[in-house]
């Protein structure tokens, strides 16, 4: 992992050096780099579209739910009482034979008393941790000690997630296939219409789920079972939970992106992981730029760390996933730094070219890349345009920030309501 991490830093520095080399050395080196990057981009895009084509041509069907017990784990920390009640009630009312376990992770806002009352009324199991130890510890403890012996599936959801009545049974249905170890469902936003930012995030979610996660599902290698709604085969979860709890990165204990690491461990164990769009959940998203950026900083740190982790094993069990992560998912954001620096320089040196050449071609090409938005979710088109700019101006640069601060543990305990720190979705 250490070598891979420093390799990623080398890619970033190398891309910058290549860009700068055009000013001091032979410009041909930079030309070759841009050509290579472009060819890989085209190859990746064709690969992505090919996977989506296969999905549309032969949509996957799973056996129907046959009544196996589903243990639903809901970790809670400082959640607003009405939000967590809404979430628990939706779970209790959902289809399927269930064991509902709520773990209060040392909340300090007094939500415990509300949970106790609810537990008596609805009959779920409530476990209270005296001090906040993080979501990872809560999942570990619940898996280790609180699951019923006859639970066949474990579904984890966030304390602000609201499930569709059929979501539980839909999300566990793939697990009836013995080769599938985990699955995840669709996540929609409860507050999408709140403001421009939430509309933009709504598009961001739609693309992430209906393009990227859908494509990953075709090769049965979804890289993140979202904490909003994730299902695991109980026997698989029990087998990997110790490794999960003990994860370290560069010598430090990991405390965030637990959903992504759980998915990684399932894939590493040789199981498939799939996406089930019919399993629908709703969640709240940050409604201010500050909260959204804060969430994205955490997600991007997890993305860097867990993508590196994927590279350590996927070449053995999921070679296609390894190639995808190695050649595009992980390297592209850092390889493209030089290209972006070129654009920044152009903005100062030749702004007319930026406006008349780069901008129109960029929009045209992104429109083609995300053609499924206008074709299948037309109302999300304005959000797509907004997202494209927001990504370039802000989110892209968080990748670099994440790369150089990936060990930072400042989020070891959650001090904000979970609504602002919801689980990774992609």
């Amino acid at each position, binding site marked *: 992992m250490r070598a891979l991490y420093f390799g990623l830093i080398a890619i970033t520095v190398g891309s910058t050096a290549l860009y700068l080399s055009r000013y001091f050395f032979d410009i041909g080196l930079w030309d*070759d780099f841009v*050509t290579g990057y*472009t060819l890989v981009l*085209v190859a990746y895009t064709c690969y992505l579209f090919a996977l989506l084509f296969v999905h549309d041509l032969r949509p996957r069907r799973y056996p129907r739910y046959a009544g196996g017990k589903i243990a639903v784990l809901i970790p809670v920390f400082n959640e607003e009482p009405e939000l967590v009640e809404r979430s628990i009630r939706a779970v209790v009312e959902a289809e399927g034979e269930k064991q509902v376990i709520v773990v209060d992770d040392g909340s300090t806002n007094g939500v415990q008393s509300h949970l106790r009352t609810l537990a008596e009324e609805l009959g779920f199991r409530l476990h209270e941790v005296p001090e906040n130890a993080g979501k990872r510890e809560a999942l570990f403890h619940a898996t280790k000690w609180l699951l019923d012996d006859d639970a066949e599936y474990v579904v984890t959801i966030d304390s602000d997630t609201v499930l569709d009545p059929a979501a539980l049974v839909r999300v566990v249905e793939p697990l009836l296939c013995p080769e599938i170890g985990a699955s995840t469902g669709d996540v929609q936003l409860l507050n999408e219409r709140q403001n421009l930012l939430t509309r933009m995030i709504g598009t961001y979610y739609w693309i992430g789920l209906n393009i990227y996660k859908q494509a990953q599902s075709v090769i049965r290698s979804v890289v993140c079972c979202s904490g909003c709604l994730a299902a695991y085969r109980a026997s698989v979860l029990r087998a990997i939970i110790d490794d999960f709890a003990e994860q370290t990165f560069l010598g430090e204990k990991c405390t965030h992106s637990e959903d992504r690491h759980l998915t990684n461990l399932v894939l590493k164990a040789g199981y498939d992981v799939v996406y089930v769009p019919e399993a629908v959940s709703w969640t709240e998203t940050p409604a201010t730029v500050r909260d959204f950026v804060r969430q994205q900083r955490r997600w991007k740190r997890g993305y860097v760390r867990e993508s590196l982790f994927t590279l350590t094993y996927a070449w053995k069990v999921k070679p296609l996933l390894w190639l995808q992560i190695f050649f595009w998912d992980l390297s*592209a*954001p850092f390889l493209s730094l030089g290209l972006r620096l070129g654009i920044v320089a152009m903005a100062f040196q030749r702004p007319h070219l930026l406006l008349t050449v780069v901008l129109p071609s960029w929009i045209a090409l992104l429109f083609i890349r995300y053609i*499924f938005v206008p*074709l299948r979710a037309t109302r999300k088109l304005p959000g797509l345009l907004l997202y494209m700019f927001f990504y370039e101006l802000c989110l892209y640069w968080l990748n670099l920030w994440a790369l150089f601060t990936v060990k930072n543990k400042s989020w070891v305990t959650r001090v904000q309501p979970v609504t602002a720190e919801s689980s990774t979705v992609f």
Partner: protein
Amino acid sequence: MKKRMAVWVVVLPLLAVFSMSLVGTALASQATVQGKAGALVPPHPDQGKLVLLETGGSFSLFKEYFGLKPSSSVCWVSARTLASLQARYATSVSTVDLGARGSFRLVTVQDADTGHVRQVIGQNPCALVQSHRTFFLPLDGHTS
């Protein structure tokens, strides 16, 4: 199923345009200064300099997008001509590798006026080159 497949009637041609325009532009940018400069540099290049002239002129977004517009010329000019160009326009210096003939310093003259450049260059040997561009393709917003 039919509805889902129907969108591919639109998607596949667009994907083809996307791929071909990117690959075509990327490959076209390879035939740039090096190829043209090799023919311009005299056998004994003691006197003179390689200059890349980026001139203005009528702008066509379509031509720019598909890389059809040769908006730059590479020339072999005398030191005196170069000095007069540098006196009027912003310039930058890089190195161009001409294989067995070695490396040459390349002075890029930016946003030059076409009429004035013609006047200054006179009979100096020049060759048109494809303008180089970089597409801004940050299509990786969902890898995190």
